[in-house]
């Protein structure tokens, strides 16, 4: 009798968990940030216009990501602690989604004085990545910090495990083609990035056919 109850309870837990997982993976990723109601419609925060220059001296702006999702982060080449760990995780994303044109990576340097275009190019070459898939951008330092604020502001306040200091937090941000922030991940934590990959796949699924 006892074995029977145990057996059925176990089976119920397995089925419930499987259903939960299946439902979650099929549901669209939530749009993050505080909403506003304008003319009876719910409006989500969006990433504003930006304009930077990448390692190939190409202008990178919102149009660069038209119809695409992208993962953004903030780094600097001489960073001795967090950035190398985040770059390692970004490389994992690069490898995993290398052949999927719907996803691009965007790394902003916060050291605009020293991380010049040739230095960014050298950095990209060292990582053996291509510009069309991974843009390393520089620009006006204040503009980059302002963009960092915009990317991180939709972050839920209860999730503020790294209070302040976002530009040195190693956070990764997933942005959809409509400029909405859809997910965050701690780029220093491989397990968090595993989950982030699942989030990216959910977004890509929502976006439709692989190009």
């Amino acid at each position: 009798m006892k074995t029977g109850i145990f057996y059925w309870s176990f089976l119920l837990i397995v089925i419930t968990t499987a259903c939960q997982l299946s439902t979650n993976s099929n549901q669209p990723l939530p749009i993050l940030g505080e909403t506003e109601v304008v003319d009876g419609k719910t409006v989500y925060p969006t990433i504003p216009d930006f304009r930077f220059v990448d390692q190939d001296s190409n202008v990178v702006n919102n149009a660069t990501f038209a119809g695409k999702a992208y993962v953004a982060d903030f780094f600097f080449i001489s960073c001795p602690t967090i950035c190398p760990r985040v770059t390692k995780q970004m490389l994992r994303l690069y490898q995993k989604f290398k052949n999927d044109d719907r996803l691009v990576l965007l790394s902003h340097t916060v050291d605009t004085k020293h991380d010049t275009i040739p230095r960014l190019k050298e950095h990209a070459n060292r990582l053996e990545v291509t510009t069309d898939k991974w843009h390393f951008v520089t620009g006006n330092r204040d503009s980059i910090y302002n963009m960092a604020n915009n990317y991180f502001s939709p972050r839920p306040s209860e999730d503020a495990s790294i209070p302040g200091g976002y530009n040195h937090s190693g956070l990764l941000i997933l942005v959809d083609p409509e400029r909405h922030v859809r997910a965050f991940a701690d780029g220093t934590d491989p397990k968090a990035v595993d989950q982030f990959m699942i989030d990216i796949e959910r977004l890509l699924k929502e976006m439709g056919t692989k190009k």
Partner: protein
Amino acid sequence: MHLPALMSLGDTNGFVHLRSEASIVWIQVNCLEIANGRQYRFHLTKESKNFSMKIYHLFMALVMLTAFAACTSNDPEQQELALQQDLMDEHDVVMPKMGEFNQTKQKLIQVLYFDTKLDSLTRDSLSMVAGNMGEVEESMMTWMNQLQNIKLLKGQKKKHEEIMEYLNKQKAKMEKIGSTLEDMEKIAKQAIADHPVKVPGPPQK
């Protein structure tokens, strides 16, 4: 390799024996492991019959801390690594403040731009603060770009004393940048509070 003073209590196998007056606690700490191979392994045994467990644990913790400190403090490589870690910890305290610092600087510039009632003396001093804040940002980035790690220093055939001196200087520099950053930010925040301005939003499309 200098063996710690505590070893004078030890035997030829490198074990430190400590015995309480009442012959209740008996501890062995193998310092040779540490001195020779940088492995931190303590072998502890006890005979405890009538002694209160609380006192015993306190005593153990104290002895282990003393033994650990004594066994490691003379290893030059450990000293260098520990100091470099201190330096990195200091950097990781200052660097996350840069984002908010930059935003404060930008708000101060907005005060200078939009507060038309500022007298010339206040305007000049706040301009100087904003300029200095920009310089602090520069100095932080420049510091990181010129920083050399132990591996690089050893590659330049630097001696232990030189490496320690270099790391100590860098730590002092980082602390100086950190304190200047805090001072500047405090002044800027006060000025922003004293001169509230209405900044026009982005043009509507």
